[in-house]
């Protein structure tokens, strides 16, 4: 799940996890930016580097969550592949862990995506532990480099353990098992970033599943009314008498306020329609989630999950 910052990646990722869990499935929701966004949307205590159940879905599904921390993933990786008990601690003490997770090109992304890869392939009693994994990924500006782990490390490692790990992760990300979901509001910058990301994913060889339009506003006004509102041609006389009928005696100032608001609203709707068309031009399936004026709570997430269930844009 990616999109411009603040457009609802975490919210939509959480709703998608609930939607996929519905009907008795087990879904893992991961985050990678150390922001505790998942804990915050589900209103639970901050997550450790450990899989925790955060919600139950309709008809008995479960959503588990994991806040992936690169340093912890690195130590875990050393432990599993090199059996480094105490030496791991020593590396940490000498700043190697810090180095590997902050600057070594790509190492950090290999560790983070590698953990997702591990969870996706983990099996118990010959069945996958998770039916689906939803990753709340970095925002559009950074997601290309984040997911393109192979080219990320290509500059530094032509052969060797890191390169091998990167190659397996990349194969998995490019397989039909993986989809990139894009989230956008109907504003110019978020839409532009999503369109750029759409092309970028194509270039990297990753499949885009669909686009979620978040903060969608529906207008109660008809097309003609919107056009009239923009051109200052609303039937003010009729509106004025309707106001009187409704017992509102604001006079001319009230009428002027409503007219002005109608114009601004119509302009906004026109801009949003234009941005929506730009997204539609990709030919990608689109699903819309409404703006909720009181803010998102757990109830909203379940409602959003319902809207996302069985829809083509998130298949």
């Amino acid at each position, binding site marked *: 799940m990616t999109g411009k910052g603040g457009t609802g990646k975490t919210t939509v990722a959480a709703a998608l996890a609930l939607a996929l869990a519905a009907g008795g499935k087990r879904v893992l929701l991961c985050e990678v930016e150390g922001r505790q966004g998942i804990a915050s*949307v589900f209103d639970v205590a901050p997550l450790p580097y450990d899989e925790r159940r955060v919600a139950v879905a309709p008809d008995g599904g479960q959503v588990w969550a994991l806040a992936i921390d690169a340093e912890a993933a690195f130590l875990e990786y050393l432990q599993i592949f090199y059996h480094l008990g105490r030496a791991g601690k020593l590396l940490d003490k*000498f700043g*190697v862990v810090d180095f590997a997770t*902050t*600057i070594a*090109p790509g190492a950090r992304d290999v560790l983070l995506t590698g953990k997702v890869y591990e969870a996706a392939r983990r099996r118990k009693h010959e069945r996958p532990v998770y039916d689906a994994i939803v990753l709340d990924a970095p925002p559009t500006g950074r997601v290309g480099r984040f997911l393109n782990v192979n080219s990320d490390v290509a500059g530094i490692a032509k052969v060797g353990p890191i390169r091998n790990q990167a190659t397996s992760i990349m194969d998995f990300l490019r397989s039909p098992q993986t989809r990139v979901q894009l989230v956008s509001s109907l504003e*110019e910058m978020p839409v532009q970033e999503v369109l750029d990301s759409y092309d970028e994913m194509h270039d990297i060889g990753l499949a885009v599943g669909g686009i979620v339009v978040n903060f969608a506003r529906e207008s109660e006004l008809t097309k003609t009314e919107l056009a009239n509102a923009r051109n200052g041609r609303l039937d003010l006389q009729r509106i004025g008498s309707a106001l009187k009928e409704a017992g*509102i005696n604001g006079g001319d100032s009230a009428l002027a306020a409503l007219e002005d608001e109608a114009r601004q609203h119509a302009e906004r709707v026109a801009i949003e329609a234009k941005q929506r068309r730009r997204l539609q031009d990709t030919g990608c399936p689109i699903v819309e989630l409404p703006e909720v004026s009181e803010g998102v709570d757990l109830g909203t997430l379940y409602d959003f999950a319902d809207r996302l269930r069985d829809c083509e844009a998130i298949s």
Partner: protein
Amino acid sequence: MARGDEQGRRRRSGDQAPGRGVRFRIGPFTGRLSDVTPLDIDALLDDHSVHIVVCCGSGGVGKTTTSAALGVRAAERGRRVVVLTIDPARRLAQSLGLEQLDNTPRPVRGVDTSTGGGLDAMMLDMKRTFDEVVEAHASPDKAEQIFANPFYQALSSSFAGTQEYMAMEKLSQLRTHLSGEPGRDGRWDLIVVDTPPSRSALDFLDAPERLSSFLDGRLIRILLAPARGPARVFTAGISVVTGVLSKILGGQMLRDVQTFVSAFDALFGGFRARAEQTYQVLKAPQTAFVVVASPDIDALREAAFFVERLEAEGMPLAGLVLNRVTDGATGGISAQAALAGAERLDDERLTAALLRLHARRLERAARERAVRRRFAGAHPGVRTATIPALPTDVHDLEALREIGDLLIA
């Protein structure tokens, strides 16, 4: 961009900026908006002792828009301005003529220069700025070596904080052209600085510290040890570390790291010194910080952190610009009256819809006022200017002028 280890950074920098979910006080419920002193933008722009205006705030609140609008207004009021933008929206960049990415300021056409002022603008290219720094401070041979090293590529394009750090570097380059100081060519007398679109408003202040603490790190010293001569005694711990490193990374990669670190060694000192110097300039009275926020709880929480931090560091805060504020004028119809009226109108669908729109706007305005009151309660001294939410995006000079007018209205 903030790509690095967020938690590690928090730990190192020792601040306690909360995640979004943390219920952080932005202020008491008892604050009053009537106590807030207005921020006089024109007085700020006309104050010729102010040479640097820094616009900061969390991502997406309108920092770039505000910086550009301040730049246009200051220029048209007679100042010779350069605005350093970072990641502007594409159409804004186009209308400012910022499309060529050559990392140097270019004149903005269409600005009214009849008062003797002028506006140049540039968009930060972080990689290029880093390259310039290396070129300026390393011998040609060393510079070549550094550019070719894969680790330099990573550091210059993706290290957490590089963008913030390079904004600081660029600022110190631009400063050398300021008028009023000895040895300066006087091309500009005001620099307006936009800050990178990081999550946290504090990243900008913490970036130099983060970079230098990385460059000072223990690992760097270990890796430098062989380059600094055989006299250096290796402890057992260090040889275990290098042993493990070459096992995990492979010998080639370890050598790359080592060459990079030793080639870079000579530059480290200069980095720290300049970062420190820029930091001092930001504390001087010739600088003014403008904190930008939208009137919602997340952005105002970041703004509160920033305001407190500036105060703690003794940095000069001009005030807060609240962007995208919802107009709360009732036109004589309260939200309640509008909703009740809409209920009564079954066959006048259009009027009912307009009344509901009206009510929704007033409710939104009331929610915004509530968070603003809380902010004001905790930070009563912070001068504030507001910009209403425009129905359309802001991407030409005319819209920037309008923003400027609205700022002083």
